[in-house]
């Protein structure tokens, strides 16, 4: 089989890629191993993620599917002694901040909707699993080999492969990219499920995201998924979970009452309606994640920490950027460069570095973060948490302040981001 773009993975990265490519007149094949609907974590959108969904013409469908409306994020401090709220806001064309809403998503339903849309718009679906990367003589990628549902193998040749395999990091595992480095949060574990009977506020903020803090790197999320069900997750150092010697289920049920009084108040009786699952080692960064014939999207190259719900947004935004980069590439752009996607890498990494700095500042410097949010740089914090982190000519003042506190200068190596929290050392 031959196509212009082979997309490994039919989650939001893959389907958004297919739809953005279709808008640019480019054909694609999506390779997906699971049958949908299937469960996935990563259920809250930033404001700008909602904007991408709108740009794809899917707002009506989102409203029809009754995904809960998110207008902001409330953080409850340790012991619920205080709380603070950051609204979701958009920027108008003349730069004014205005209230906007985005969505919380039950991923099984949302991802299935996106896949159906991508196919309806012309993407082809191959039900199978990519097992090998096909390369040409120069090490450039020219397709993937797929094990089909019936066990047979099929080669899919493409001018570009988009790795949208999420945390499976397909191309990185096949040695196509640069090395994968551990991130700052690689010794964390997230344990999560869904509950019914949880208490929400009344009014327009009833479906907002809540973050409940116990101490540094020990927190919970509370994300409504529909009228009755709330997704809850507890994120802690893996060592803390290990020393409790509890099953994941017992751990979650106990933590939901111990972690923060506000969480206990809202979930007086823990009634789980979903399996208790976990994710570990979720923090990493792959260098050189794009090159001749390939681009890795979202989780397939990098993830930091879930606290500010950037994951789904970054994935869909990178899909949008990649579609344009692919178009330029297919038209012959940058073919004489050592890396035809160097600009794409820089655009993506600069944005992700900003995300990482905001997340790290929240954990390492909570007092300063509170001051920036409430007093000194409120608009800029709203911008960043809404997702406006890409393509900034100059880092905003709040980001500069956070970098000063974190003592990092974001200098580049080889023109791309230097991984932190790892054993990375730049080449001599």
């Amino acid at each position, binding site marked *: 089989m031959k196509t212009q773009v082979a997309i490994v993975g039919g989650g939001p990265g893959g389907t958004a890629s297919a739809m953005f490519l279709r808008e640019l007149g480019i054909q694609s094949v999506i390779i997906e191993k699971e049958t949908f609907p299937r469960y996935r974590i990563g259920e809250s959108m930033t404001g700008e993620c909602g904007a991408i969904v709108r740009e794809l013409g899917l707002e009506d469908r989102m409203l029809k599917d009754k995904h809960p409306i998110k207008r902001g994020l409330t953080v409850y*401090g*340790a*012991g619920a*002694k*205080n709380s*603070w709220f950051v609204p979701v806001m958009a920027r108008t064309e003349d730069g004014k901040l205005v209230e906007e809403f985005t969505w919380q998503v039950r991923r099984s339903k949302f991802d299935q909707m996106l896949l159906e849309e991508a196919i309806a718009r012309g993407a082809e679906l191959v039900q199978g699993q990519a097992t090998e990367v096909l390369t040409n003589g120069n090490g450039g990628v020219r397709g993937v080999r797929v094990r089909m549902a019936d066990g047979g193998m099929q080669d899919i040749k493409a001018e570009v492969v988009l790795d949208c395999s999420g945390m499976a990091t397909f191309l990185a595992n096949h040695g196509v990219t640069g090395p994968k480095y551990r991130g700052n949060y690689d010794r964390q574990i997230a344990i999560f499920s869904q509950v019914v009977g949880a208490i929400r506020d009344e009014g327009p903020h009833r479906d907002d995201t809540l973050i409940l803090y116990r101490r540094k790197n020990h927190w919970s999320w509370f994300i409504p998924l529909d009228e009755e069900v709330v997704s809850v997750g507890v994120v802690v150092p893996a060592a803390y979970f290990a020393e409790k010697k509890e099953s994941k289920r017992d751990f979650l049920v106990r933590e939901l009452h111990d972690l923060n009084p506000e969480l206990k108040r809202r979930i007086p009786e823990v009634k789980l309606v979903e399996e208790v699952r976990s994710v570990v080692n979720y923090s990493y960064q792959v260098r050189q994640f794009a090159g001749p014939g390939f681009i890795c999207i979202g989780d397939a190259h990098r993830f930091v920490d879930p606290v500010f719900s950037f994951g789904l947004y970054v994935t869909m935004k990178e899909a949008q950027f990649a579609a344009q980069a692919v178009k330029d590439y297919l038209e012959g752009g940058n073919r004489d460069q050592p890396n035809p996607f160097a600009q794409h890498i820089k655009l993506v990494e600069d944005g992700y570095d900003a995300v990482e700095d905001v997340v790290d500042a929240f954990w390492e*410097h*909570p*007092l*300063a973060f*509170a*001051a*920036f949010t*409430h*007093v*000194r740089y409120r608009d800029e914090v709203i911008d960043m948490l809404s997702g406006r982190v890409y393509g900034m000519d100059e880092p905003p003042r709040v980001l500069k*302040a956070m970098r*000063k*506190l974190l003592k990092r200068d974001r200098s580049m190596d080889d023109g791309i981001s230097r991984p932190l929290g790892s054993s990375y050392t730049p080449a001599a």
Partner: protein
Amino acid sequence: MTIESIVERFILEEILIGDNRTKIDPDESLVSSNVIDSLAILRLISFLEEEFGIQVDDEELVPENFETLNEIKAFVENKKANS
């Protein structure tokens, strides 16, 4: 009044209202013990800036500078001397 007594009074009257306390020990931990929470510290910082005519830089927004009355006093004196 000394710096530390001005600050003590502010904390007792504006932050720990209803706590029935009349005194804060100059070495009593305020921040890491969560005696005053982070939002209250922001109010304290605004008060220090107004009351003593100093500007707390972004990089100075760290708990160590406000941990005890003694630390706050040292911080304010330092800022005043260097302004």
